[in-house]
C-alpha cells in the first residue's frame, strides 16, 4: 500500500505545474469554505447570542395561543400563580436549565405630561432577568454612564430610544404610564426614567423595561401571575433536545377540553433572525457545493489527462500481469493523494487564516452595539467533515479515469502512439 502511494506521488510530481495548479485550486476551494464557515458561523453565533442574551432569551413558555396573538399583547393569556409554581418546579428539576425569569408583557400609554403615545413594556424581575439575559444591559444607556448594580428598581422605567427622542424624554425625567388591565379598568402610575434602551431586531426588540412588581400593581394582577417565563439553558447546543424534553413535559398540562395549556418556543420561532441564520446556513452549504464542484472537475480533468498520457505505461503494467484492480488502485491512490495534499495545505492555511482573523479582529456595528468583534472559529468536526468531503470527492472524481485505465486491453495500450 505504501509503495502504491509512493508511485502515485511520483507520478503526480511528473507533471509538477499541472499538479501544483490543480492542488492550488482545490486548496483555494477548501480555504474559501473554511474561512466562510468560520466567519459566517461566528457572525451567526454572535447575533444569536446578542438576541438571546440581551432580549429574547433562548426559550419562552407562554399560555397556549399567546405567540400567535403577540401583537395585541393579550392580558387574558397569563400563567397564574398555581401554574407558575408547577412550571418552576419542572424547570428547577431539569438539570439542563441554567436560569428562568418571569415576565409580563403589555401595552400602555406613556405620557410626558404634554404628549402621550403607545409603548410596549417588558416587566421583569431584574435579578432573575440578568441570569437569563446576561447582556440585557448592553443595549441600555443610564444616567451615570454605568450599568447600576440593580438594573431596575420599583418605580423606574427604561424606555425605547426612539420614543424617548420623540417625546423629548431624558434620563431622570418623570413619565406616567396608563394601562388597561384584563378586565378593562384603567390605572396609572408615575415612573422615573432610569435609562434608555436601543431597538433590536425582532418584535420584542422595541420594548421598554419596568419592574415586574410595578406591572402587577399597574395591571392589578395577582401575586406571581406572569405572561411569559424566559429560559436559559446550560449548553446552547442542546437547545433542541431541551426544547423537545420540556415540550413533552408541558404537554401533559391540559385544559378541560383536553388541549395543552402551555406553549414553549425557542428563539428560532420568536426572532426573524432565524431566517437570516437559515440563509447563512444555505450560503455555507452553497460554498461547500462550489468546493465539491471545483474538486470534482479539477481532479477528474487531471486524472483523465494522466490516463490519456500514460496509455503505453498502463499497457506495460497490464502486460506484466498487473491485475485490473491494482491498476485502478494506482490511479485512485493518485487522485486521493492529490486530494490529501490539497486538503492538508488547505487546512493549514485555513486554520492560519482563522487564527489571523482572530488576531486582527473584524469589527462591525449592530444597532447601538458598536465595535462588535467577529471571532471566527471552526470546529474540528467541521474541518473533519470538509476534509473528508474533499477526499471522498477526489476518489469519486478518479473513479472513471481509473476504471478506464483498468479496462484497457494491453495489446491496444502497448500499440498506442
Amino acid at each position, binding site marked *: 500500500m505504501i509503495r502504491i502511494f509512493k508511485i502515485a506521488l511520483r507520478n503526480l510530481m511528473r507533471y509538477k505545474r499541472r499538479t501544483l495548479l490543480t492542488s492550488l485550486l482545490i486548496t483555494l476551494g477548501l480555504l474559501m469554505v473554511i474561512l466562510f464557515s468560520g466567519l459566517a458561523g461566528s457572525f451567526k453565533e454572535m447575533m444569536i447570542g446578542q438576541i438571546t442574551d440581551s432580549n429574547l432569551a433562548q426559550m419562552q413558555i407562554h399560555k397556549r395561543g399567546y405567540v400567535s396573538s403577540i401583537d395585541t399583547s393579550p392580558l387574558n393569556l397569563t400563567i397564574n400563580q398555581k401554574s407558575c409554581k408547577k412550571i418552576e418546579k419542572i424547570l428547577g428539576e431539569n438539570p439542563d436549565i441554567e436560569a428562568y425569569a418571569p415576565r409580563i408583557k403589555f401595552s400602555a400609554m406613556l405620557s410626558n405630561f404634554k404628549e402621550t403615545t403607545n409603548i410596549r413594556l417588558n416587566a421583569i424581575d431584574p435579578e432573575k432577568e440578568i441570569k437569563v439575559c446576561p447582556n440585557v444591559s448592553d443595549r441600555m444607556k443610564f444616567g451615570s454612564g454605568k450599568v447600576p448594580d440593580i438594573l431596575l428598581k420599583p418605580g423606574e422605567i427604561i424606555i425605547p430610544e426612539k420614543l424617548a427622542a420623540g417625546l423629548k424624554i431624558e434620563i431622570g425625567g418623570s413619565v406616567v404610564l396608563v394601562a388597561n388591565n384584563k378586565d378593562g379598568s384603567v390605572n396609572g402610575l408615575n415612573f422615573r426614567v432610569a435609562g434608555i434602551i436601543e431597538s433590536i431586531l425582532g418584535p420584542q426588540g422595541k420594548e421598554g423595561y419596568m419592574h415586574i412588581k410595578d406591572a402587577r400593581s399597574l395591571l392589578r394582577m395577582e401575586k406571581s401571575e406572569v405572561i411569559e417565563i424566559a429560559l436559559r439553558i446550560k449548553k446552547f447546543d442542546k437547545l433542541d433536545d431541551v426544547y423537545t424534553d420540556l415540550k413533552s413535559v408541558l404537554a401533559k398540562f391540559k385544559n378541560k377540553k383536553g388541549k395543552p395549556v402551555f406553549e414553549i418556543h425557542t428563539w428560532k420561532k420568536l426572532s426573524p433572525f432565524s431566517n437570516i441564520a437559515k440563509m447563512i446556513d444555505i450560503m455555507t452549504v452553497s460554498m461547500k457545493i462550489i468546493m465539491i464542484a471545483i474538486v470534482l472537475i479539477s481532479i477528474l480533468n487531471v486524472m483523465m489527462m494522466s490516463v490519456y498520457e500514460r496509455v*503505453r*505505461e498502463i499497457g506495460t503494467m497490464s*502486460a506484466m500481469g498487473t*491485475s485490473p484492480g*491494482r491498476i485502478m488502485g494506482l490511479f485512485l491512490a493518485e487522485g486521493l493523494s492529490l486530494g490529501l495534499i490539497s486538503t492538508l495545505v488547505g487546512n493549514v492555511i485555513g486554520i492560519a487564516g482563522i487564527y489571523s482573523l482572530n488576531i486582527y479582529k473584524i469589527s462591525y456595528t449592530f444597532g447601538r452595539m458598536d465595535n462588535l468583534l467577529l471571532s471566527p472559529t471552526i470546529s474540528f468536526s467541521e474541518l473533519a467533515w470538509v476534509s473528508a468531503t474533499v477526499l471522498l470527492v477526489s476518489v469519486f472524481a478518479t473513479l472513471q479515469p481509473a476504471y478506464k485505465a483498468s479496462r484497457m486491453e494491453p495489446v491496444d495500450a*502497448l500499440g498506442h502512439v
Partner: protein
Amino acid sequence: MALVQIDNVSKIYQTGDVQVKALQDVTISIDEASFVTFVGPSGSGKTTMLNLIGCLDKPTKGKVFVGKKQVDAFNRRQLAAFRGSFLGFIFQAFNLFPVLTAYENVEYPLVMIKNKSISKRKEMVLKVLESVGMLNQKDKFPDQLSGGQKQRVAVARALVTQPKLVLADEPTANLDKKSAVNVIRLMRAMRDELKTTFIFSTHDPGVMEEAEVIHTLEDGKLV
C-alpha cells in the same frame, strides 16, 4: 507437450471494411529452454505472433497453448494472472516506468504482482540486477541510463519473477549494433543460467545470428 503450442492459428484484424490477415493457419511448437526468434519484414506477423503467445491477444481461429494451458480460452482476469505468473516481457522501447529507479522498476512485478516480502524482494532484485550487470546503476532513473542499460534493466525486470517464458518484441530495435548484440547475448546467458525460454522477434541480421532457432514469417505465414 512443448512449452508453446500454436495450432492452426489465424488472426484477422478488421479495420472498417478492410480485413487484414496478420496470421494465417500457423502451427508451431516451441520447446522449453529454447532461444527462438521470429524474423521477417514489417507486417509479416511477428508482433501478432508474440502477442498471441504472450496472452495479450486472442486468435480469430485456432488454439494457443502455453505451459500446457489453452490460454485463448482464458478470461481477462485469468490472462492477467497467467501473464504475471508465467511470462516476462521485454519491449522494443524498454517501457520502463519513468518515475521508478532501475531497482524499483525491477522490483515492480514483485510488489504489484507477486506480493513478495521486502527482504525477499531485495534479495531477488539485487541478484538479477547483478546478473545483468546493472547493480551499480540501480538507483538511477530511466532517463539517466543509456538505451543498452535501459534494456538490461528491462531484461532484469522480465526475469525477476523467474518466468518460464520471456517474450521480447524487437528488443534491439532501439539500440546500436554493439548494445543490441550485448542484450541478446545477455538474454541467452540468462536462458543458460535460468533455463528460461526466450522468444523474440527481430529483423536485424546481426541479432538473428545469435538465435538458436529461427522462424521466418511472411505475410502471416511461416516459411
